[in-house]
C-alpha cells in the first residue's frame, strides 16, 4: 500500500453509558481504494462510520481526513471537505423532484454547471429519464439509486455507503456493482455491506469489525479464508 492515506483513525472509541460500541479502532484508508467494512450485526459498523462522517461524536480518539484532523469538526464541515454519505435507511427529499434532490447536492459542492452535473450523475445511475418525477413516487430501488446519485454529483474524495444494496433486487444489485467499479480510482469508497457477493465483487480490501474492534483486515481472498472471521459470523469455535 504505497498510496496516500485519505482517511485514518487512531484509538477511535465510542462509549454509550458503559457499553463500548467501538473500541480503540486504528484504521487506514488509502486514496483510490474500495474498502468494505463488514461484521455481524451490532459489531459497531454504523457507529464507526458515524464517527467518520461526524453524525456521532466520538468519545476518544482521532480522525484524520485528507491530511487534516477533523475530530472536532461538525458533520457539515466534514462533508464540505469532500465526503459524501448515503444513509442506511434511504434519506432523500421525498416531496421534491429527482432533479432537485440531486441539484441540492450539486449546488453545495459547487455552484457551477449544476444542470449538466445533475444530468450526468442521473445518467450514471440510469435515471436520467426520471428527472421530473417526485422522489416519493419512485420505487425503493430507484430511491436508493437517487441517493447514490446525490453522492456522485458532489465528486467526493471519499464516498461512504451504508448498506447501499439493502432491499435492492438482484438485477439492481448487479447494476450497483458495475457502478461502484466504474467510480473506483477517482473516488475512494467505504462500503458497509452485508451482501458478501457484493463485497467480494467490489472490494479491494476488507476490514472486519466484531464487538467494536477490528477483527481482521485483508484482501477478499484472505478474509474469505480466515477462520477467525468465519467463527465471528457463524458463531462456531475454531480453536
Amino acid at each position, binding site marked *: 500500500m504505497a498510496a496516500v492515506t485519505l482517511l485514518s483513525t487512531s484509538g477511535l472509541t465510542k462509549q454509550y453509558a458503559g457499553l463500548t460500541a467501538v473500541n480503540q479502532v486504528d484504521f487506514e484508508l488509502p486514496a483510490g481504494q474500495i474498502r468494505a467494512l463488514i461484521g455481524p450485526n451490532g459489531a459497531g459498523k454504523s457507529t464507526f462510520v458515524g464517527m467518520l*462522517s461526524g*453524525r456521532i461524536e466520538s468519545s476518544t480518539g482521532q480522525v484524520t481526513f485528507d491530511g487534516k484532523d477533523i475530530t472536532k469538526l461538525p*458533520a*457539515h*464541515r466534514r*462533508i*464540505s471537505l469532500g465526503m459524501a*454519505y448515503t*444513509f442506511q435507511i434511504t*434519506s*432523500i*427529499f*421525498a*416531496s*421534491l423532484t429527482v432533479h*432537485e434532490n440531486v*441539484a*441540492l*447536492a450539486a*449546488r*453545495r*459542492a459547487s*455552484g457551477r454547471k449544476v444542470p449538466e452535473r445533475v444530468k450526468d450523475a442521473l445518467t450514471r445511475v440510469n435515471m436520467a429519464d426520471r428527472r421530473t418525477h417526485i422522489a416519493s413516487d419512485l420505487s425503493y430501488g430507484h430511491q436508493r439509486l437517487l441517493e447514490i446519485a*446525490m453522492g456522485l454529483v*458532489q465528486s467526493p474524495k471519499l464516498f461512504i455507503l451504508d448498506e447501499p444494496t439493502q432491499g435492492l433486487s438482484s438485477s439492481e444489485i448487479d447494476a450497483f456493482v458495475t457502478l461502484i467499479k466504474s467510480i473506483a480510482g477517482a473516488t475512494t469508497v467505504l462500503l458497509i455491506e452485508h451482501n458478501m457477493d457484493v463485497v467480494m465483487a467490489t472490494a479491494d480490501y476488507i476490514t472486519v469489525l466484531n464487538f467494536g474492534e477490528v477483527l481482521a483486515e485483508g484482501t477478499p481472498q484472505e478474509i474469505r479464508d480466515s477462520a477467525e472471521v468465519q467463527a465471528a459470523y457463524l458463531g462456531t469455535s475454531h480453536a
Partner: protein
Amino acid sequence: MKDQLLTGVFHLLIIALMAGLYFILPEYHSGVLARVMVLAVYAMGYNILFGYTGLLSLGHALFFATGMYGLGLAMQHLDVTPSIGILCGLGAAVVVSAVIGFLALRTTGVAFMIVTLMFAQAGYLIILWLGEYTRGDEGFVIQQSQRVLNGVDLSQPDNRYFAALILFAISLLLIGWVVRSGFGKTLVAIRENEERARMLGYNVHRHKWLAVIISGVLAGAAGAAYALLFGYVGATFATVQYSIFPLLYVLLGGAGTTIGPLIGTVFMYYLIDLSSQITSAYLLIAGVALILLTLFAPQGLAGELRKRVFRWLP
C-alpha cells in the same frame, strides 16, 4: 433562470393587480386592503420561517412589536423623522431576531414553539413594565403631523394605500427572489429532511438562523409600517393573538407559496369583517370556516391551487 423570470412576472402582475384595485374599489375596501397588505407582509415574513424552513414560531408578535416600537418610541421620544424611525424599527428587528433566533434555535419542534412563545410573552411584559415610555396597554398615537415621509402625508388614504403597496411589492419581489435562490431551496431542503441536508454539507443551523432574521425583519418592517400608516402603537400588537394571526393567514393561504400569505390575510380579514356584520358570534363562523378549510384544503388556498392547477406557482 426561466423560473426566476416566471416568478418575477407573476409577482409583478399581482402588484399591478393590487395597484389597479385602488381605482376600482370603494374607499372602505381600499382602506381595508391597505391594512391587509401590511399584515400580509407580516405573514410573508412568517411564511419564510414556517412555510419554507418548517419552523413553527408562536412568538412572531415580538418581531412585529419590535418594529412597531422601534419606530414608535424613536419618533415619540427622540423626535426623529419617519425615515429614521423606519431604520430604527428595522435595526431593532435585526438585533432582536438575531438574538432570539440564536437562543431559540438551540431547541427544535415543540420546544421551539414554547421558547418563542415565552420570549414573546417576555417582550409583551417588558412593554408593560416600561409603561412610562410605552404607555402600556393603552399605547400612544403618532400625531398626523409627524407622519409625513419625505413630504408625503401618510395619513391620507391614497398615500397610505400606495405606501402599503410599495412595502408589499418590495417584500413580494424580495421573497420571490429568495425562495428561488440556492439559499431558499436549501431552506426547503431543511424543511423536508434536515438530517439529509446536513449530510449534504449544508450548515443547517446557520441557514435556520438567517431564516429567522429574514422572517423577523419582514415582521418588523410590517410592524413599523403599521405604526406609521395607522398612527397607533400599543401593547395589543405584542400579545399571543398577534403571534397566531400570521400562522392562520399562512395556513389558510398556503404555507410555502409566495402568494399564500396575501390570500390568507384577505380571506381572514373579510371572513371576520363579513361575519361580524351578521352576528356577534362571528368567531364561531370564522372557526367553522377554518375547520372546513383545514379539512378540505389542508395545503391552504394557494397550496391547493398549486397542487391541482398551477404546478408552477412559486
